[in-house]
């Protein structure tokens, strides 16, 4: 009986602590929005963070996009060939990238590269009392440290996703047109005719914006909430990747169902 009670206690504790963390994260999110004035008044603070989260992520984004595009080109060609519509490879690659793979894979890579860096940086700043020092200097750390990183992530994500889609299409072009020999005119014209700006591209940008808000908020919250120890920071960094990945995939399903439904 005792062990049964303890079992339910553990479940209850786990649920309440998760709800508490969700509440704290939501509170931090609104605090960021309230304290965002500095991020725009002193835009160089945000620009510096855009460089660290965006520009420094370019290599991994471009290389991954190129390979993803090439794989899409290969797989798509061999499937479409069976139905005699190999010219549609351009549309397939473009739609897959612009609608889904661009925003989703970019967000997953962003969580792994920039998200972990943000969590570790904020966590270590907390562990080494840099955030306390800032508070004691009458400087709000949420406005000075957290908000510029948040807006940098939100601005960088759609740009990175767009670059991912463009480079991915180039990868598909290299495999389909240059290597396999699909007609170049058909590749581009089918893409131009079937990719809708509002329905496909804008929806993709909306997705990446939402992923940007989610990923950056998670990374910042995990760093800000991390116990100020080496182990605490390491666990927080791991949680950033796991939580961000699950949230991105979950949100992708929800957003896609709304977008297709609309």
């Amino acid at each position, binding site marked *: 009986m005792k062990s049964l009670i303890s079992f339910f206690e553990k479940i209850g504790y786990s649920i309440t602590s998760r709800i508490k963390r969700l509440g704290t994260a939501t509170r931090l999110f609104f605090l960021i929005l309230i304290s965002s004035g500095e991020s725009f008044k002193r835009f160089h603070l945000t620009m510096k963070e855009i460089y660290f989260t965006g520009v420094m992520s370019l290599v991994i984004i471009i290389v991954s996009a190129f390979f993803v595009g090439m794989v899409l080109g290969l797989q798509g060609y061999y499937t479409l060939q069976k139905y005699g519509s190999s010219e549609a490879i351009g549309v397939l690659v473009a739609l897959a990238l612009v609608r889904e793979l661009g925003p989703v894979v970019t967000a997953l890579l962003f969580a792994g590269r920039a998200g972990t860096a943000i969590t570790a940086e904020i966590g*270590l700043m907390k562990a*080494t*009392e*840099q955030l306390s*020092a800032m*508070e*004691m*200097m*009458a*400087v709000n750390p949420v406005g000075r440290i957290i908000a510029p990183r948040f807006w940098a992530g939100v601005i960088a994500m759609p740009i990175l996703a767009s670059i991912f889609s463009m480079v991915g299409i180039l990868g598909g072009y290299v495999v389909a047109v240059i290597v396999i020999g699909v007609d170049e005119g058909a590749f581009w014209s089918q893409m131009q005719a079937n990719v809708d700006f509002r329905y496909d591209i804008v929806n993709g940008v909306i997705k990446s914006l939402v992923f940007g808000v989610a990923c950056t908020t998670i990374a910042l919250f995990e760093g800000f909430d991390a116990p100020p120890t080496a182990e605490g920071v390491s666990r927080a960094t791991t949680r950033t990747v796991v939580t961000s990945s699950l949230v991105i995939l979950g949100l992708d399903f929800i957003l896609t169902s709304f977008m297709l439904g609309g």
Partner: protein
Amino acid sequence: MSDNLINIENLTFGYGKELLHKGINMQFQKGKVSAIMGGSGSGKTTILKLIGGQIKPNSGSVSIDGQVVHDQNLSGIYQLRRKMGMLFQHGALFTDLSVYENVAFPMREHTDLPENIIKDLVLMKLNAVGLRGSYKLMPTELSGGMARRVALARAIALDPDIIMYDEPFAGLDPISMAVICDLIRTLNDALGATSIIVTHDVAETFSFADYIYFVADGVVAAEGSPKQLMASKLPFVKQFIHSEKDGPVPFHVAAPSYNSDLAL
């Protein structure tokens, strides 16, 4: 009018149900260097956090220049903190900024001074701590003593009325320790500030502090000038000053009997 800049009255504070402070009374006089001493875990640093408004007391009050710290809203607390400078135990320098930018940080955040004035002020502050020649270095390139001196230059960047030092001597070699001691006294007198040092280094603190509080078991166990405390017959003060292994602060932490633990 009282000469006390900071008043702590009947202060109680605890994390959870356990009380760390059980009715502390302290007064810090304007222009003086006061020290708070006591064993590890006695809540010395917590007193600095209470003065800085980073945490709220359970009861009692902390007031600065007549203003009760925990009655202020966030902007009121930030106004009070503009009068304070704090040196953290390991410096807490911003690792992504150079020495120069670390010292310039409070000036850039709180003033609209032109860059040439900021440059002059930063170099003057760094000169005061003897590190003008190191302004280009990054915090990772500094030794522990140098990092603390830079942090001290940053703490006095806006000429605060109150300077708080959290364990300023921890982990320093004897030369750096002597330098920091000298700086605390010199800067306090030059700026006309009020300094509060949290430490457990007896020899250094007794050499330059004006007034000392000993904290033990959540209360002020003893207080007075270094001379008065040196002559104190209180067992706790004697044990602390003479670094005695056993006394009112026991060597062994409370535990079940030795025999029962070893199953004898």
